[in-house]
């Protein structure tokens, strides 16, 4: 179990001119559940491979509990990893698979056996311990991969590289909740890489959102939702994502195109750069009074309805409150407490 810290960490693949991972400092607390979230090519897998030691960063250091492990190869780092495609050792039984990391480290047979049975119990694999691993379904294989990490009680962190990619949708939910439960039982640092926000938000205590090799926000799922630090986070998290409207800011008011003046929850100093007003569709509702908009269409998501509207020609997603009929002359009401101002994409700090 370990606290993982990065110091001035960056990575440049040989022959490439752009950083796959831009310089950063970060600390992941011991026994935390972290998710690395971002679209393909954002550098999350690069970061994961640096943690596991499969990749050596071109700059900076990686510390496990204050100890520099940058130069250590994977096998000496005490990490475990679950891959995108299930990796099991075909010719072995489930039991042998789970015991494999222990056998490689010379753990006595009796101790290994007890440990394997304990972990199999945690994962619900007890009944199939003596079956051949290669004949199992993808979800059980992923459990075995995970189990190979859990059997080692000295493991510093367990890394997950999009582990649910090949799992059937109806099993994804089961596996995800089991993972969450496991983390409560076994306090070990877990790092979960995914491009699926649902997976990230349900699994992690803290989500690290990445974009183009840069960590744009680290925070709890609530923080990412309530106060996105970057327009990318606002847009990437939530479905639909945050609405962003170009605006001008004067003290505690924003002026939208068309001259609409909106009251802000806090006052802002003079801001430079491209300014945008952000609000999530959850806090923008169709109403009788407010900004005049044109209705394009209604999307029924089951639990709620989203109205796709246009505000001065710009697309905007809003909530159609429950029980409300589709209005003939729709207007938009914004919850003033939920308004954020972004300057050049970054959240602007207000006063008060």
């Amino acid at each position, binding site marked *: 179990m370990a606290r993982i810290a990065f110091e001035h960490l960056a990575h440049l693949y040989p022959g490439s001119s752009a950083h796959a991972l831009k310089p950063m400092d970060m600390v992941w607390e011991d026994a935390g559940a972290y998710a690395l979230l971002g679209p393909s090519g954002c550098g999350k897998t690069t970061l994961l491979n640096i943690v596991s030691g499969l990749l050596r960063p071109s700059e900076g250091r990686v510390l496990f509990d204050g100890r520099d492990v940058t130069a250590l190869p994977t*096998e000496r780092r005490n990490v475990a990893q679950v891959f995108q495609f299930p990796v099991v*050792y075909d010719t072995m039984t489930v039991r042998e698979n789970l015991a494999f990391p222990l056998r*490689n480290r010379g753990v006595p047979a009796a101790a290994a056996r007890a440990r394997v049975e304990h972990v199999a119990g945690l994962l619900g694999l007890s009944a199939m311990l003596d079956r051949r691993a290669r004949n199992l379904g993808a979800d059980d294989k992923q459990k075995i991969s995970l189990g190979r990490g859990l059997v080692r009680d000295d493991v510093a962190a367990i890394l997950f590289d999009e582990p649910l990619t090949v799992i059937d949708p109806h099993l994804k939910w089961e596996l995800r909740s089991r993972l969450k439960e496991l983390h409560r039982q076994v306090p070990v640092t877990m790092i979960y890489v995914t491009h699926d926000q649902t997976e990230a938000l349900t699994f992690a205590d803290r989500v690290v959102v990445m974009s183009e090799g840069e960590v744009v926000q680290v925070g709890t799922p609530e923080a990412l939702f309530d106060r996105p630090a970057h327009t990318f986070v606002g847009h990437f998290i939530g479905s639909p994502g945050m609405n962003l409207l170009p605006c001008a800011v004067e003290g505690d008011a924003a002026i939208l195109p068309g001259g609409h003046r909106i009251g802000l929850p806090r006052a802002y100093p003079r801001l430079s750069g491209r300014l945008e007003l952000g609000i999530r569709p959850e806090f923008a509702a169709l109403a009788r009074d407010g900004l005049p908009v044109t209705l394009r269409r209604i999307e029924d998501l089951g639990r709620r309805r989203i109205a796709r509207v246009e505000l001065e020609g710009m697309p905007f997603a809003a909530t159609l409150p429950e029980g409300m009929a589709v209005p003939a002359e729709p207007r938009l009401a914004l919850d003033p407490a939920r308004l954020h101002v972004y300057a050049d994409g970054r959240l602007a700090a207000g006063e008060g």
Partner: protein
Amino acid sequence: MAKPLDNRAWFLVLPVVALVAFSALIPVMTVVNYSVQDSFGNNEFFWNGTGWFKELLDPSTDLGGRFFDALWRTLLFSAICLLIEVPLGIGVALTLPRRGWGVAASLVLLALPLLIPWNVVGTIWQVFARRDIGLLGAAVNGLGIEYNYAQTPLAAWVTVVAMDVWHWTSLVVLLCYAGLRAIPDAYYQAAKVDGASSWAVFRAIQLPKMQRVLTIAILLRFMDSFMIYTEPFVVTGGGPGNATTFLSIDLVKIALGQFDLGKAAAMSIVYNLIVLTVCWVFFATTTRSQSEAVQ
């Protein structure tokens, strides 16, 4: 996903069946026909029933003794070849880089012996191993070891086995390499994470993933080494004495040299049946163990 049942598919297979039947059935019938007759030349044939077969399978007769000698010799040769070539082939395949410029170059050089006509393989080794003009022969004799493949059976065997290893190990290498390349990187990464040694990686990942290609390699190598003719014939001519007279060489001697068609035909059939049986048993057991594992 099951394939659809459609007997019209036979039309697509028909040309193959016709051509192979023309090339296989008629000669097989000829062979069977000869095997039950005796001839004294002049195209005179006499019914001999199962006489040849009885003689052939009885080691106390001249023919039977000769046949069993050649059979044991050939089996020993196949066994030695397999025991050297399969481990060596796996070993060399493991040393091949997974990617980079070296791969294509290595593969081309490795495949080279496979495309040399078989009698030229014999010629190469003849030129290479002769004590008067050959580098190998001169070097070994220079070390004070008496080596002359035309005189001592042991030297002849060493030469013929070395030649077969030289000629065919590449086939095992290429097949194994093809199997190794199909292993996703994640397996190696997982093994690293699990702290596996190179040996554990080999046992747990590489060997199981090579199982299918190794089956093919062993089958092909058994078949071809058991049927070997040209290369030893060029180098040793079956000698010294009968030391390297393998089944094929003996068969051609009887059929084309002595024109003993009945004996040769009976021998052909028994020979062919041995190859078929061994291959079938091997094939059936490996595919059964594989399909059991899959279910």
